[in-house]
């Protein structure tokens, strides 16, 4: 029986405060659900921005000797495409989803530090606007998303120093990622403390939903990986403006130092971008298979294993710079090792599907699409770990194919699975199923038409980031095909936007539990009240809401958890 009472102080004369006006509500909110929604809307806005940049790149490359953009603008566009998609779309999107869903899943009333949480969001927004505002100054970052020194060196004309990127372009980049780093650290430590300290009674670590597990691992990766980026870009700024020599070979500095520092952030970063996606798929597949996840412990701990291993593989991005043979052997081995926990997950997902009562709703389709696309991206990733092969295709379109299969086929598919899955919880409306299916098939076709030919182009020797290419290299048809594919993806996104707007207005009411789901977030109203749970639920198994709906066959009676 539930009781909740508030004894207020003697009645005060109440005026409408700023925090109660419509705008004030959003500006001052510390509610994890509102912050989560703001994160997601912002991230999606930047997804559209980054997507338009991608379309510009593909338009430029559609035909040989393309003249759509000038070379400098092209450099700026591909740098901003990468930076935007990674730092301003995928990371904030997962932070937003986590913000919305994690406290609900673990039966908490909010995140541990609500104001810090709001601060993290506003930094993402202003950091993103700061980065994009560089276009207004005609000074967008132009050194690629990994900003290799010495290409990014020398902001001011120095002695013995060729100003490679003389304007303020790369300053925007370095400061922008510092800003976004602050936000990610704030978000990550909030998640860690929330998950460790605010779980509902009975929600032991081994009963947490897998999305919570993966958010936890991701947060640790952020806490321990981002400092490398902070240090690296701090040193870059010092080199550019105070005349230090960290990355300057002419002064005994070492450009490779940048690569080591950057990739010791950058490789954990790619798992930061994919682990929450694993979590989402591990939530969606069981619900639409009507089965508990197969091998919960393995799925959870393989995520932890990936987290640890991700700190030992960074130099596989640097095989071509001439590392010692021992180092190459070490990093090739550790990289192939990561395939093991990743494959464990794939087999667990397949085993979850096996014998299940599958229902192919849109979230399920996207989750299945994720498994398939991620598998391709994982396999060509293992190929890249083989040093001789990497020599052959490094910095070619093969690498672009790999990273887009894992980031677009992987992370973005999982993000759409999550949007379709949790949209009813957030808004109380269902997204249109038919439009969702159309979007899924358009995207699946678009992704493969765009990114699969990149494998072949890479093997044919097309380098990444080239401005244009001569017509007699045999790359023409495949490039045109990729551009067509990019516009198919754009069409899919338009379908989604249409679906989003119409469903928000006149979508079918969802009720509190449209998918007959298993986890605690569905045990609240849709959308949930500001305080989430009137009474904090007590958890006895890994599927608390399933137990509640099926008291006779509850997990805690049947299975030992």
């Amino acid at each position: 029986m539930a009781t909740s009472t508030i004894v207020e102080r003697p009645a005060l004369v109440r005026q409408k405060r700023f925090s109660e006006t419509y705008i004030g509500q959003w500006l001052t909110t510390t509610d994890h659900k509102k912050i989560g929604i703001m994160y997601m809307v912002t991230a999606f806005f930047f997804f559209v921005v980054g997507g338009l940049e991608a379309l510009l790149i593909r338009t430029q490359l559609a035909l040989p000797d393309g003249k759509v953009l000038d070379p400098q603008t092209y450099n700026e566009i591909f740098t901003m495409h990468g930076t935007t998609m990674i730092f301003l779309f995928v990371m904030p999107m997962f932070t937003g989803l986590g913000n919305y869903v994690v406290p609900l899943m673990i039966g908490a009333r909010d995140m541990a530090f609500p104001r810090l949480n709001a601060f993290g969001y506003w930094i993402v927004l202003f950091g993103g606007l700061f980065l994009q505002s560089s276009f207004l100054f005609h000074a967008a970052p132009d050194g690629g998303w990994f900003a290799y020194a010495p290409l990014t060196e020398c902001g001011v004309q120095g002695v013995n120093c060729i100003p490679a990127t003389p304007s303020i372009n790369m300053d925007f980049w370095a400061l922008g990622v510092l800003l976004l780093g602050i936000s990610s650290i704030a978000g990550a430590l909030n998640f860690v403390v929330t998950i460790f300290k605010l779980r509902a009674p009975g929600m032991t670590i081994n009963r947490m939903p897998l999305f919570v597990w993966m958010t936890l691992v991701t947060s640790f990766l952020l806490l321990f990986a981002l400092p490398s980026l902070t240090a690296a870009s701090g040193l870059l700024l010092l080199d550019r403006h105070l005349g230090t020599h960290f990355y300057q070979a002419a002064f005994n500095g070492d450009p490779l130092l940048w690569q080591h520092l950057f990739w010791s952030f950058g490789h954990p970063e790619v798992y930061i971008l994919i682990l929450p996606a694993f979590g989402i798929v591990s939530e969606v597949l069981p619900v639409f298979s009507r089965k508990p996840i197969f091998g919960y412990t393995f799925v959870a701990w393989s995520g932890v294993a990936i987290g640890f291993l991700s700190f030992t593989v960074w130099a596989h991005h640097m095989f071509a710079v001439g590392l010692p043979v021992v180092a190459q052997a070490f990093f090739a081995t550790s990289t192939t090792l990561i395939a093991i926990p990743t494959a464990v997950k794939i087999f667990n997902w397949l085993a979850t599907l096996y014998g299940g009562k599958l229902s192919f709703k849109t979230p399920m389709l996207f989750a299945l699409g994720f498994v398939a696309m991620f598998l391709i991206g994982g396999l060509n990733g293992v190929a890249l770990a083989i040093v001789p092969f990497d020599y052959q295709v490094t910095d070619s379109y093969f690498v672009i194919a790999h990273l887009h299969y894992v980031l677009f086929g992987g992370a973005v598919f999982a993000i759409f699975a999550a949007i379709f899955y949790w949209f009813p919880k957030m808004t109380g409306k269902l997204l249109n199923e038919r439009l969702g299916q159309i979007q899924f098939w358009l995207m699946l076709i678009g992704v493969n038409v765009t990114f699969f030919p990149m494998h072949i182009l890479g093997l044919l020797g097309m380098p990444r980031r080239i401005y244009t290419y001569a017509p007699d290299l045999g790359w023409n048809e495949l490039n045109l095909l990729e551009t067509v594919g990019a516009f198919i993806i754009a069409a899919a996104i338009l379908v989604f936007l249409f679906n989003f707007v119409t469903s928000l207005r006149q979508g079918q009411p969802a009720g509190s539990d449209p998918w007959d789901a298993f986890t605690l977030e569905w045990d609240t109203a849709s959308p949930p009240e500001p305080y989430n749970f009137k009474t904090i639920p007590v958890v006895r198994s890994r599927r608390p809401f399933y137990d509640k709906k099926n008291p006779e066959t509850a997990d805690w009676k049947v299975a030992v958890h």
Partner: protein
Amino acid sequence: MSVAYREGIPALEQVHDEGGRSLGWWGMMFFIASEALIFANLIAAYLYLEIRQGGHGWRLPSEIWYPLINTIILLGSSAPIHYIAARGIEKGSQRRLIWGLLATIVMGAIFLGGQVYEYSSLISQGFTPQSQLFGSAFFTLTGFHGLHVTVGLIFLLIVFVRALNGHFTKERHFAFQAGEMYWHFVDAVWIFVFSIVYLLPLLRG
């Protein structure tokens, strides 16, 4: 940094907590861990560059006794805040809190002044961040630490002013606790920085 303290949801904490550390303590801990890793990266970069250069010329033109005294002062400054101030406020003694804080702040300020003096004498000898790679690495690593000492001092000064106004009680003094944690962190990091910057060249002879 200052954003991380005094921010928990006390109500929630009490529902779930089994009497362990507070939310703020954990938040501060993870924040410090992340900061420590920035230092770890800078130290790694320092050592990487030093080793790539074979260690030639990675030695300060000045004597070691001066920074050594400075180090002793900084490490010593952790004592009053812990043994006088923290022990005091746990027993509810405002007086011990204030005096302990004051002693630590003064010692920290002496360290910072000493560092400024050291910098200016090095620069007057022509050893600057621009003059050579070692200069870049030296000033960046020690300067980043000096920045943390400064932040820690500002933190402790705010806590000190609040302590003068009697904001802290036996039960509620998390801002002070956070300041103390941060100060210990700044001290501990200096042990590593000092060993690598000043002591390592001595080993090499």
